[in-house]
């Protein structure tokens, strides 16, 4: 049976994983590759490295880090942030990444999805999408609008329509991040996750809002997600991947 995946996301700033702490700014929590290797040993099924500063500074993602991750990790990993075109995708994949996540670039220039799929195969092309709840309207029938720049910039696109278009253009997986629940730890946004999972024939990764094991159970069971992405649960809330997997297994969710 195909198992449900637990994916750990690491936000990387200037080569380090940091955590925002109130009144103190960003506190360094570790080396991304060392942290990823630890999660891999604990039973994570996949890792996502998101290079936040690369994207903001419009420079390529850190290929040295990608190469170190490829050497250290025995599980698949995705890199996102700072991908400016097909050549950046090629460089990341040749350095050892399994997939590349395209977010705002795909909104700006959707042809990149097709170019990436033709050059490397759809299985390498992940569409990363941030969606915000706006309520259903004629222009946004799903009630969720695609946003970019960390939610600061609306695009006028419907999240489900964009997911369908991205898959038609070549995306092989969709990582759907709900802006409203991201960082709130009250659970994934089940409504839009289910809508997207039922609309597209490719796997959907739910992101944003996990704070308890029950939240992952809900997103797998009620929203038909194929994978669930966690960050703060394992970085700072004291959960290990092993404990999350044990909880999922006890709830009857098939996991590795």
């Amino acid at each position, binding site marked *: 049976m195909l198992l449900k995946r637990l994916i750990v996301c690491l936000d990387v700033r200037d080569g380090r994983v940091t955590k925002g702490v109130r009144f103190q700014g960003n506190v360094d929590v570790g080396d991304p590759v060392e942290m990823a290797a630890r999660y891999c040993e604990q039973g994570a099924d996949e890792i996502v490295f998101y290079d936040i500063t690369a994207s903001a500074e419009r420079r390529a993602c850190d290929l040295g880090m990608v190469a170190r991750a*490829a050497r250290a990790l025995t599980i698949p990993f995705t890199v996102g942030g700072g991908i400016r075109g097909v050549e950046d995708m090629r460089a990341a994949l040749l350095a*050892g990444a399994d997939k590349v996540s395209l977010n705002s670039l795909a909104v700006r220039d959707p042809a990149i999805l097709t170019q990436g799929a033709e050059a490397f195969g759809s299985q390498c092309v992940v569409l990363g999408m941030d969606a915000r709840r706006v309520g259903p309207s004629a222009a946004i029938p799903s009630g969720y609008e695609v946003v970019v720049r960390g939610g600061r910039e609306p695009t006028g696109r419907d999240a489900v329509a964009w997911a369908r278009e991205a898959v038609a253009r070549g995306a092989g997986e969709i990582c759907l991040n709900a802006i409203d629940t991201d960082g709130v730890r009250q659970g994934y946004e089940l409504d839009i996750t289910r809508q997207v999972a039922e609309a597209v*024939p490719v796997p959907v990764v739910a992101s944003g809002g996990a704070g308890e094991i029950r939240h992952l159970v809900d997103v797998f069971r009620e929203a038909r997600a194929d994978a669930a992405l966690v960050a703060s649960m394992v970085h700072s809330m004291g959960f290990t991947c092993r404990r999350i997997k044990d909880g999922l297994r006890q709830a009857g969710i098939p996991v*590795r």
Partner: protein
Amino acid sequence: MVTILDYGAGNLTSVRLAFERLGETPRLIGRAEDWQGGRLVFPGVGSAKSGMAGLRARGFDALLRRAAAEGAPILGICLGMQLLLEGSDEDGGVEGLGLIPGRCVRFDPALDPAAKIPHMGWNTVAQAPHPLWAGVPDGSAFYFVHSYFARPSEAADVAGWTDFCGVRFASALRRGSLFATQFHPERSGEAGAGLLRAFLSWEGR
């Protein structure tokens, strides 16, 4: 000695690194005449048609037939497994190496409308006895990414079974000194490392 065939079908970085993690330094070759004997790894990602063209252009089709006849241990991975069969339905029909009787066919979404194709992610493998499974618990999960699967003619050639999209398909094949996996051992955690480790000491029998 481990030699990895580089025939332009995808990127071999993760396969090479997986062997390096086990303390082995594999050689990558792009021409048949560079093989100096020993174990062969036949990886590959991409379409069957371009994969076969890449093999033929480098003389690797003849090399694989010769190595198999000589009993050299050969590990096929993903497309490298599919091309060992007689043919594939991909790209309107492609002739394979024919080292294992059978064909490659596509998952039929009608058998399970809820299944997402490609089959991507971790799935379990029920083992048929083989020395390469020595360090891998039966039922272990491995990482898969594919839309076509092997349908070998003879059940004796199957080394592992996996359920997906309404079928129980052959996720690992064996025949003489050939062993092949549809999944990616190089990206399958401890289970994958266990299989690769066993390959490094397997004599092909």
